């Protein structure tokens, strides 16, 4: 329905010496009616990006545009962007019935109390819950049910775009499936645009049309889901793919001794991100492994990214330089 665009968005926390750039100059588009999956390791800034979009965090610079218009967040208005949170246990007020929680999100302009009640019943139905559940408190619901309520609440705001931040990672695997199915179903039914955040490539793959990979506050690769998964350009994407457990392969193959230098490297400190390519201390094709790649130490690969396949932020990405058209 609507296109969400992050235009050079930067988010910083703290001040002075303690400043932390959680999201650094991010450029990302969620095309209308499509699902963009955002993956990346913990602390890479995925949630921060999402929170900036819905106005929970202020961005230091850049714009977030909905259909080309900068988003404004003022109380009382319909919020075209809605978010579903990771933890269904903390995203529902334990002191409120789920009906109230959902009703609260129904825009005031839409109608009176009666309308709101009907809307709650409709939404509960939409996410596969009985309407009489509206009177229940979250404590009486299972994790999966709560996550459905959270989704219903997000839908109550009549959003154009939904941001789903790791909505399954707090759930048991057996429940994860039902939520993923629901998300897919609803997205197709309602033609929602969606930013689907997860650290699990397999999950992202299952729901997304596009995949963006984030590392230390930057998008390092973005492209159509299938392309990124089958032809990853950035070494970090490759590492993620390799780490994703694969059924049937009992291989935890020892890393190449040559790669030992980076194999056990720690995640970088976001307060002091490495200069040049942020991934270089861990990069299996970077300066610590292959000599002669000193450019990674100093030159930031994101500047040229748009000219590479999948907008990859890597000097030594496999593919040739080319522009990617997200709206293909």
């Amino acid at each position, binding site marked *: 329905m609507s296109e969400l665009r992050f235009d050079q968005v930067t988010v910083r926390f703290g001040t002075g010496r303690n400043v932390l750039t959680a999201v650094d100059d991010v450029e990302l588009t969620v095309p209308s009616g499509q699902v963009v999956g955002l993956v990346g390791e*913990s602390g890479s800034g995925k949630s921060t990006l999402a929170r900036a979009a819905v106005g929970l965090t202020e961005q230091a610079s850049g714009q977030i545009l909905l259909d080309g218009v900068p988003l404004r967040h003022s109380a009382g208005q319909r919020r075209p962007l809605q978010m579903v949170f990771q933890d269904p246990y903390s995203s529902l007020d334990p002191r409120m019935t789920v009906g109230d929680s959902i009703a609260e999100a129904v825009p005031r302009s839409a109608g009176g109390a009666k309308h709101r009640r009907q809307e709650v019943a409709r939404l509960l139905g939409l996410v596969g819950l009985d309407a009489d559940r509206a009177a229940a408190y979250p404590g009486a619901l299972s994790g999966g049910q709560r996550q459905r309520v959270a989704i219903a609440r997000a839908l109550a705001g009549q959003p154009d775009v939904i941001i789903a931040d790791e909505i399954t990672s707090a759930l048991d695997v057996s429940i994860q499936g039902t939520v993923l199915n629901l998300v897919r179903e609803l997205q197709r039914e309602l033609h929602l645009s969606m930013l689907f955040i997860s650290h699990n490539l397999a999950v992202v793959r299952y729901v997304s049309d596009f995949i963006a990979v984030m590392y230390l506050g930057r998008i390092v690769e973005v492209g159509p889901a299938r392309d990124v998964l089958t032809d990853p350009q950035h070494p970090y994407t490759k590492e993620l793919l390799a780490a994703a457990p694969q059924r049937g392969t009992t291989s935890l193959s020892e890393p190449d001794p040559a790669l030992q230098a980076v194999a056990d490297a*720690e995640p*970088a400190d976001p307060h*002091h991100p*490495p*200069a040049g390519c942020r991934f*270089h201390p861990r990069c299996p094709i970077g300066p610590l492994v292959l000599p002669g790649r000193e450019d990674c130490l100093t030159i930031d690969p994101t500047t040229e990214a748009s000219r590479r396949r999948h907008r990859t932020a890597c000097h030594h990405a496999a593919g040739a330089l080319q522009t990617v058209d997200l709206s293909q």
Partner: protein
Amino acid sequence: MTTTHGTTHGTTMPGATPPGPGSTGGWRAPGALAAMTTHPWVRFAVRRLGRLVVSVLALVTAAFLMIHLIPGDPVRSALGPSATKSLIDARRESLGLDDPLWLQYLQFLQHLFTGNLGTSITTGLPVSDVIRDRLPATVQLAVGAFLVAVLIALPVGLVLGVLTRAGRRPRTELGFTSTTVILAAIPEFLLAVGLVYVFSMKLGWLPVAGRSNAASYVLPVISLAIGPAAILARICRVELLAVLQTDYLRTARAKRLPAPAIYLRHALPNAVTATITLGGLLLGGMVAGTVLVENVFGWPGLGSTIVSSILAKDYPLVQGVVLVYGVGVLLVNLVVDITLALLDPRSTIRES
């Protein structure tokens, strides 16, 4: 929240700042100075000192304003409604109250720096002398009671924590809780009177009052210490119970350490931190308790001065006492914070 929290850089311990494994690329090359200023201890000290200075300033200003906040005219209210105008004017003049407020404030600060706290209205002695004479007795009493409270509360709280962990011995727990709640609800002065009755009058074991020999410290210190000790013991137990629930204690058990090692080496230091935080606050409260206890035991301290100076509207003395007392409390808090920082390496970080 995330796995990357607290990685090596920026939080290394004193003296040791070799580059981390991933720093080969020189993505952070802290200079010596930068390392110094970013050192957690330095940062902690700077921040803490800043807070102290702000607090002291607030205190000094409040003490100054106290006299100026008195509705109407402090001199008039000191002298009473029927004082003559000439008398009031003369007094105003001598107190410098006709100067603009900022000038008076500056003068006040200047006097403070020279240790001049003014002259007591009732005795005519310099306030600084009065305080100097009486402060030690109060400090002795409060600190003594604090130490006793801690020495009673920590072992009792810890032992009871261990005994009643995970809902064991519910009856003991009930007894402990009720005892401590009752003890904490008894006003110090009542306790003091009771103790004198039993130990001095009936049994004749201890002196009734005064501050002469070691024996004369026993009752005042105990009557002051028992209430706080009860509170402290309870907090200590609750803390210990919380610590006993932690994963790292399970780790310690998984190491098959003997019970004493588990409790003393692993549980105690962690349980003690919160206890100390509270303890510092209690020490401040104990100084308040001295006011009452000093009265009962004829203790030559500042506590009795506090009350009499207020009742006599001896404002310079009240002001001096407020200042000294406030600074004392701030210092105690400083000591507590430093102790905590020493005991718990995270606190220096956590502060920010």
